[in-house]
């Protein structure tokens, strides 16, 4: 694997300076993305969020959000599941760029990122720590917290170790680890850049175009990295298999088929076969099934049929679920120091992310503000900076042609809320 800088510079125009934000949340123990049939104590799931923002000429114009779920068994990572949650552009890039190639480069990087990277730091697991005196938690009252602080202050001999909770060290990855990719495609006027659909330069793909767009991205990733035993699937709720197959005809990887990667049997209960991701429309439908007390009745095959009827999956707009399940034979690498900012907490992660997603992009001012705020916050609060990337793709190089078609395309796989219900940051 090349560095993220290299991967991106290859797809960005020659002699042009770009700047990248790559945030990673602290790895944290999480519940499984599947509803457990019985509690499985042998497995631990570690969840991480990545957030990317790309800018040029002091404007942020592209953003991608994804989640990585590592399944740990016997202190080894056996599976890395990548859920691509949202991608979007706002149309404020003055250069000719290929959003598809940028997205492919980032996925290239994530797919081949060594799972051990996430485990190199200690991971907080559930439970509170023993010893070290009382800790201050979310439930601690103000008065008691003041007493604890005073006690710590008074006993300031050596280090007054604040409590850090239980941590668990995980050895690394299983040599046979598998890599999964999940994403959900649906065209929306905007996903991460609110109001950006009002920029006339932003080009919005139809549901069908978006599906083809993502298929081509994933197909490239498959060809580049996955071994021959890999399974790649496409499910279009409510669509006949023959029509779904037509979407797959141009793909280069040989292992595409209609279906999903989570279950072989359509007779299986949907509740155990369908993963639930953050802000996930099919997850919301699954919740509804549970609320209606039908969890033990709805089979996987019924699920897809019913899903199509849901508001978020209305006819006339092609939506799809794409999945990959396979192995990566090539060597994986850890990230270079400068190419990822691992946040100290989810809270700070959200603050920085909201400098992009909380802005409004009806005019280019939002893109400028997002950039300036990111730059200043990283500098003032984290002593970090955006990663500079110099493009090296010659305009005549193959692959750069036809970029006009997907230039500034909003490519967002998933999610219902177009605009955050409560946009926090937005100056």
């Amino acid at each position, binding site marked *: 694997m090349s560095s993220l800088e290299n991967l991106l510079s290859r797809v960005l125009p020659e002699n042009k300076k770009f700047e990248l934000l790559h945030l990673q949340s602290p790895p944290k123990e999480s519940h499984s993305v599947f509803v457990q049939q019985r509690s499985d104590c042998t497995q631990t799931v570690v969840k991480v969020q990545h957030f990317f923002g790309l800018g040029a000429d002091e404007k942020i114009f592209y953003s991608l959000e994804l989640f990585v779920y590592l399944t740990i068994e016997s202190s080894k990572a056996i599976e890395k599941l990548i859920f691509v949650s949202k991608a979007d552009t706002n149309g404020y890039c003055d250069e000719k760029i290929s959003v598809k190639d940028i997205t492919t480069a980032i996925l290239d990087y994530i797919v081949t990122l060594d799972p051990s990277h996430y485990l190199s730091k200690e991971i907080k697991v559930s439970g509170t720590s023993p010893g070290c005196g009382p800790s201050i938690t979310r*439930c601690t*009252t103000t*008065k008691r917290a*003041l*007493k604890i602080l*005073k006690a710590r202050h008074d006993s300031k001999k050596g280090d007054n170790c604040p409590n850090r909770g239980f941590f668990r060290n995980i050895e690394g990855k299983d040599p046979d680890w598998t890599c999964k990719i999940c994403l959900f495609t649906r065209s929306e006027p905007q996903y991460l850049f609110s109001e950006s659909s009002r920029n006339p330069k932003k080009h919005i793909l139809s549901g069908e175009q978006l599906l083809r767009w993502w298929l081509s991205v994933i197909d490239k990733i498959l060809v580049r990295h996955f071994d021959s035993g890999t399974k790649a699937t496409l499910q279009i709720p409510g669509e006949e298999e023959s029509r779904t197959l037509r979407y797959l005809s141009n793909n280069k990887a040989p292992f595409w088929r209609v279906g999903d990667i989570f279950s072989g049997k359509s007779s299986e209960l949907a509740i155990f076969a369908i993963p639930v991701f953050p802000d996930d429309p099919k997850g919301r439908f699954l919740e509804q099934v549970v609320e209606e007390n039908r969890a033990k009745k709805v089979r996987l095959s019924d699920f897809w049929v019913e899903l199509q009827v849901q508001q978020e999956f209305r006819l006339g707009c092609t939506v799809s679920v794409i999945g990959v399940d396979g192995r990566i034979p090539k060597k994986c690498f850890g990230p270079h120091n400068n190419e990822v900012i691992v946040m100290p907490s989810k809270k700070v992660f959200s603050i920085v992310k909201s400098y992009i997603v909380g802005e409004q992009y*009806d005019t280019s001012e939002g893109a400028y503000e997002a950039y300036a705020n990111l730059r200043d916050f990283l500098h003032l609060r984290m002593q970090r900076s955006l990663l500079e990337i110099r493009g090296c793709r010659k305009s005549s190089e193959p692959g750069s042609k036809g970029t006009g078609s997907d230039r500034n395309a909003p490519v967002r796989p998933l999610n219902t809320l*177009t605009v955050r219900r409560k946009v926090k940051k937005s100056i």
Partner: protein
Amino acid sequence: MEEDKVSKSLEALARVEDEVEKAERETEFLRLKKLSAVYLNRKEAIAGIPGFWKVVLSQHSDFANYVRAADLKYIDCISAIEVTWLCVEDEKADHRDFTVTINFDAIDGDFESQTVSKTFRIEHDVSKFIYRSKRTEEDDLRDEELGFLTSTPTEIKWPKSFDGINPSLVTDKTTSEGKRNYRTGMKSFFSWFKWTGLKPGKEFPNGDGLASLISEDLYPNCTKYYTEAQIDLEEENVDEDDESDEPLQLESSDGEPEDCDGKQKSVKRRKV
């Protein structure tokens, strides 16, 4: 020397918290006293508006989250709700102690008319918990300091149609159907009257939440909910979920240089 100062200041800050608490408590006593008088006038006015509480209870979207849909039939029978704060009569009571009194109209052959009062009191002694459920030590410390809501069980006559789930009538506690009926009944609004706050996981869930909803929101703001219901009838029922579906508001993008609105913060405008 310097350290001492910090230590003393932290201690002083803790004392200030006590003073703030005292000031808030004293103010709250006074406030409830004043409001109780006003609520007497309100009660009279409400009595002249048929179906007032039915409108309020259907308008309040959160209230429905605490009860089962099947309860709504009997919640529609509620002809009056009153909340009284114990400290108005008894200065020694915690200002958060209160009694809820609910009048039900009858449904012939199914449900008797009745007036039921349930009193809620703040408790600080965590040893009173009969079941601990998932309570942590941290929860205990917090509840000991801030207090937690409890109540004595109150008798209420259940509708006949609920015989199958009325927990005091469900005798079969071994078959899965029997268990389910029992638990279903426990989630009914009628089980709330039995709620004690001392058996988490074994009684009506979130009984304190429902009690506070009534005393802190539904009762004080009932007129607001009543008038809001009239707006909704005229316009359209816009609930929060719909907000995300609203059409995007366009702002003109080429204002004067002084135009700072283009990128107005979408932090919600607070009421002044």
